[in-house]
């Protein structure tokens, strides 16, 4: 995994609450044995009509959304299934972070393991970000994981919390499998003690 570096980018506003993983990437696209290529079908049933043509009213199809790297979403983002295809699809599209008041547990874990940053903000900040994104769709934000800040165009920095272990892994580009493999002697000891 690449180390997570600070980035500046525009945001897409998706005000729906409880966005479930079946919306993020419908199950019929899970018949793949790869991680790549899922971005084209991110939010497929909201993004395309039955004939596969883009729905012009859906936010990802608006010209100002092109190249956005931050997704501003409603409460309880990523609820539903355990499919890691959800963060793969978001990353494949180009998102690097999602902002919400809360994330479903499995989605958050999956996102962190792939370098997609789930940023949790309080309800008041969330409302403020929504208002800003609605008023200024071209506004740019700066995400700095080391500083744990989300900076607004006027320079205001919003601090966010993140699990310190996950933060270290992201900043160093280290994956958890490496960490676990480093503990194989302890695992062997545990297995020996139980058998």
């Amino acid at each position, binding site marked *: 995994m690449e180390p997570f570096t600070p980035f500046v980018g525009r945001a897409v506003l998706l005000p729906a609450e409880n966005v479930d993983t079946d*919306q993020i990437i419908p*199950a019929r696209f899970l018949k793949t044995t790869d991680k790549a290529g899922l971005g084209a079908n991110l939010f497929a049933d909201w993004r395309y009509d*039955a004939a596969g043509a883009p729905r012009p009213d859906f936010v990802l199809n608006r010209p100002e959304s092109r190249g956005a790297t931050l997704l501003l979403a409603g409460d309880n983002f990523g609820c539903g299934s355990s499919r890691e295809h959800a963060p793969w699809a978001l990353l494949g599209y180009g998102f690097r972070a999602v902002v919400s008041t809360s994330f479903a*547990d499995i989605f958050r874990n999956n996102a962190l393991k792939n370098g997609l940053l789930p940023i949790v903000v309080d309800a008041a900040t969330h409302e403020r970000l929504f208002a800003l994104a609605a008023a200024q769709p071209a506004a740019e934000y700066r995400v700095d994981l080391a500083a744990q800040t989300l900076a607004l165009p006027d320079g205001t920095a919003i601090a966010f919390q993140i699990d310190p272990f996950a933060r270290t892994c992201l900043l160093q580009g280290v994956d958890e499998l490496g*960490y676990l493999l480093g503990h194989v002697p302890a*695992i062997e000891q545990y297995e020996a003690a139980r058998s």
Partner: protein
Amino acid sequence: MPRTLLDKIWDAHVVAQEPGSPAILYIDLHLVHEVTSPQAFQTLRERGLKVRRPDKTLATVDHSIPTYDRSLPIRDALAAKQVAQLATNCQEFDVPLYSPETGRQGIVHVIGPELGRTQPGMTIVCGDSHTATHGAFGSLAFGIGTSEVGHVLATQCLLQHKPKNFEVRVDGQLRPGVGPKDIILALIGRLGIGGGTGHVFEYTGSAIRSLSMEGRMTVCNMSIEGGARAGLIAPDDTTFDYLAGRPFAPEGAAWDAAVAAWRRLPSDEGATFDRSVTLDASALEPMVTYGTNPGMAAPITGRVPDPAEVRDPAQRRALEKALAYMDLQPGRPLQGQPVDVVFIGSCTNGRLSDLRQAAEVLRGRAAAEAERLDVVFREAGCEWREPGCSMCIAMNGDQLEPGQYAVSTSNRNFEGRQGPGGRTFLASPLTAAAAAVTGVLTDVRSLM
């Protein structure tokens, strides 16, 4: 200090924990299926790793495999490739695979318990959020992503933060026509679909104790729809009676030792929970969902709620959007709503006891004669399919047409879950069978 069931299982499985890091949690059983595992096996291949404990790993095909005649080839090339890939991976990494030819293939959360692989006190994971099902046996079971599937394959461990304890107490006696599915839909309706986030539900109380293992599995299965990664029910004689004699259950002296250990698992007197909620089972009615998440549920005797009566603006918008998708009129009674398709199946309600209940309604009398349930269903005009996730997930050819209404015994009524544009009413097998008889949403008690 008194400990909960969760505390006890957790403590027994922590391999190591460094300060500031999550615990390294040992996994006793890893269930694998075709959809969430290929990329994990690929990771192992790329890093030159083996499956650490094939003996604690079990694979089957259920999600993308079609449910039509298994003697026919799989028509969908992508699904065929995925199913073949699992066979290749299992062979290469020495993982036991219950393919259709073995006669043991089935929905992963149905076969684990049926074979006796699922046992009290275990930690169980699978790349599937409905792994929570296995908590019915007093095992800590939860869904994981594909990266974590790779972690468990390679190390038999996961990095985890301990979830919080949440007691869901259900006392009282269920009335006729009301069952475990109605308990869990009522609970999610009350807590909301994010209500259990960060927690594990432990279901307690007399109504839970009186449920069969199948009923307990239905309740635990949908814990994730309430936001909890896992649901637990303390093991008791019902659990042990179910497990005794199953192919992978311990035997003889090992069985006695196991039961003695399992009897020590229930939460201690005085153990504390971070949160708790109570439900009165005797007040419950058959439940049905009207919206696009499992928390949007109401008694079958109720009406479609009116967004105008919802104060919170975000919730009002969500309800408006859901009712627009479902094309339901606020204030209309739920009973009588026309239905195009009835789906009885899935890891939530696709077990033998579920089929028996549904058959009872379809035949209007108790199913008997060495079961022959397939005949009962076929004679009632149903299709009888091979084991698989089928129309719960609409990635295997079984799906709704756009605009169709289904009563489904599955677990998710999200937009498009049963096919793009499809509309789902979640309900129990009894309520589903009642709708199959009448063609409209029906209070099953009117047929009993």
